[in-house]
C-alpha cells in the first residue's frame, strides 16, 4: 500500500506552550494549518504513523546514532522539562514493533545499518506537538525514526534522502495505510544568542525547491549554509527523508509559513502531494 499521506510540521514548543506570544495572524494561520492536517488524518484513516524527527539530547547523547528506529511497544512524552514549556501532559503513545522491525530489516537489506532501540523512548516536542493536533485521541500507533540533526558529524543530506527510499519500499510492500510525519525546521536557533532570528532567504530557497517538487536541488547544501539558518535548520534532514519516501515528483503544499520570532522558529506546516506525477 503506497503511503497515504506525508505531512511536514514544525515542532516549536511555543505552539502549545506559549501560543499567545505570537502575533494573532501568525498564531491563527499556524493553528488553522494544524487543524487542516488533523482533518486530513481523519479522512486518510492511517493504520500507522511513521514519524521522522530528531531528539534534542533527551533520548540520545552517547552513543549518538545517525539513524535509530524505535522498536518499542510504547513510548512516552513529553518528558517533564518539555511538559512544562509545552503545556502538554506526558502521555503514552503506542508503538508498532512488527512494522518497525520490517523497516529495520529492509534498511539492512538496502545497505543501511541504522541503530535500533527496544526501549520505551521518551519523546520531547518532536512528535507530541504535531500529534496533539493530528491524533488528539492517541489512537494511531507510531514508529519513530530518529535522525541525528544535533551533534556533529551529522549524516549527509544525501544519505537522509536515500534512507527515505527504505521507508517507501516497506510501505509499498506492506498492507498498512501509512501516514508519514516529518517534524522539524525551518530556520531557528536554539540556545544561542541568535534565538528568535529568521533566515528568510534560506527559507525561500528551501520552500521554493520543495514546492516545485525538486528536493534533490537541496542535497548540495553544505552544513555551513544550513548553519546560517540556525542550529535547528539541520532538521530539514527529516523533511528530505520524507520527500524521498513519498511519490516521485511530489510537491510541498504549504498550509502555513509563518516566521514567528516569539516561538524562535520559522514555522512551516504542509503536506506533500502523494500522486505520482512523474
Amino acid at each position: 500500500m503506497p503511503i497515504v499521506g506525508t505531512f511536514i510540521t514544525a515542532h516549536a514548543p511555543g505552539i502549545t506552550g506559549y501560543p499567545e506570544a505570537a502575533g494573532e495572524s501568525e498564531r491563527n494561520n499556524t493553528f488553522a494549518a494544524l487543524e487542516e492536517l488533523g482533518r486530513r488524518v481523519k479522512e486518510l484513516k492511517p493504520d500507522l504513523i511513521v514519524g521522522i524527527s530528531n531528539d534534542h539530547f533527551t533520548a540520545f547523547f552517547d552513543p549518538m546514532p545517525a539513524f535509530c528506529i524505535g522498536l518499542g511497544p510504547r513510548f512516552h512524552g513529553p518528558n517533564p522539562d518539555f511538559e512544562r514549556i509545552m503545556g502538554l501532559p506526558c502521555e503514552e503513545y503506542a508503538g508498532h514493533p512488527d512494522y518497525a522491525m520490517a523497516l529495520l530489516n529492509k534498511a539492512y537489506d538496502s545497505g543501511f545499518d541504522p541503530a535500533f532501540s527496544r526501549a520505551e523512548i521518551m519523546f520531547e516536542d518532536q512528535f507530541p506537538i504535531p500529534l496533539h493536533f493530528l491524533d488528539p485521541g492517541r489512537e494511531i500507533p507510531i514508529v519513530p525514526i530518529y535522525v541525528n540533526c544535533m551533534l556533529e558529524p551529522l549524516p549527509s543530506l544525501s544519505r537522509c534522502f536515500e534512507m527515505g527510499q527504505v521507508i517507501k519500499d516497506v510501505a509499498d510492500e506492506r498492507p498498512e495505510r501509512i501516514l508519514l510525519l516529518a517534524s522539524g525546521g525551518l530556520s531557528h536557533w536554539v540556545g544561542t544568542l541568535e534565538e528568535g532570528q529568521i533566515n528568510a532567504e534560506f527559507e525561500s530557497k528551501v520552500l521554493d525547491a520543495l514546492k516545485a517538487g525538486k528536493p534533490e536541488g537541496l542535497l548540495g547544501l553544505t552544513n555551513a549554509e544550513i548553519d546560517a539558518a540556525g542550529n535547528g535548520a539541520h532538521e530539514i534532514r527529516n523533511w528530505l527523508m520524507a520527500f524521498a519516501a513519498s511519490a516521485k515528483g511530489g510537491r510541498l503544499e504549504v498550509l502555513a509559513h509563518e516566521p514567528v520570532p516569539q516561538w524562535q522558529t520559522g514555522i512551516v506546516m504542509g503536506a506533500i502531494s502523494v500522486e505520482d506525477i512523474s
Partner: protein
Amino acid sequence: MSVYGVESFLFQLGQGEALRKAYREDRGAALSGYDISEEERVAVEAIDLRWLIEYGVHPILLLRFNLTGEIPSREAYLKLLRGAPAQ
C-alpha cells in the same frame, strides 16, 4: 580536556531530579564524578554561560540550565549568554 565531560553532566542534568538536587545542594560535589578540568568546573559551578558557549559546549545542552530551572527564565538564560548578570 574537552567539552565532553561538561556535556555529559548537562545531559545527566536533563535526565531527572537526582543530579539536580545534588547540584543545588553542593555544585562542586555534584560535579565530582565528571572528568572535567578545573576551568570547566569553575565555569559550570558559576553557570558562566558565555565562557561555556565560547569554549564549545553545545548550546542545546547549555539550555538544560534553563529547562531544569537552574536559570529561571529564557530571558535570564540569554542575558547570561551575553555575559551580563541575569538579574
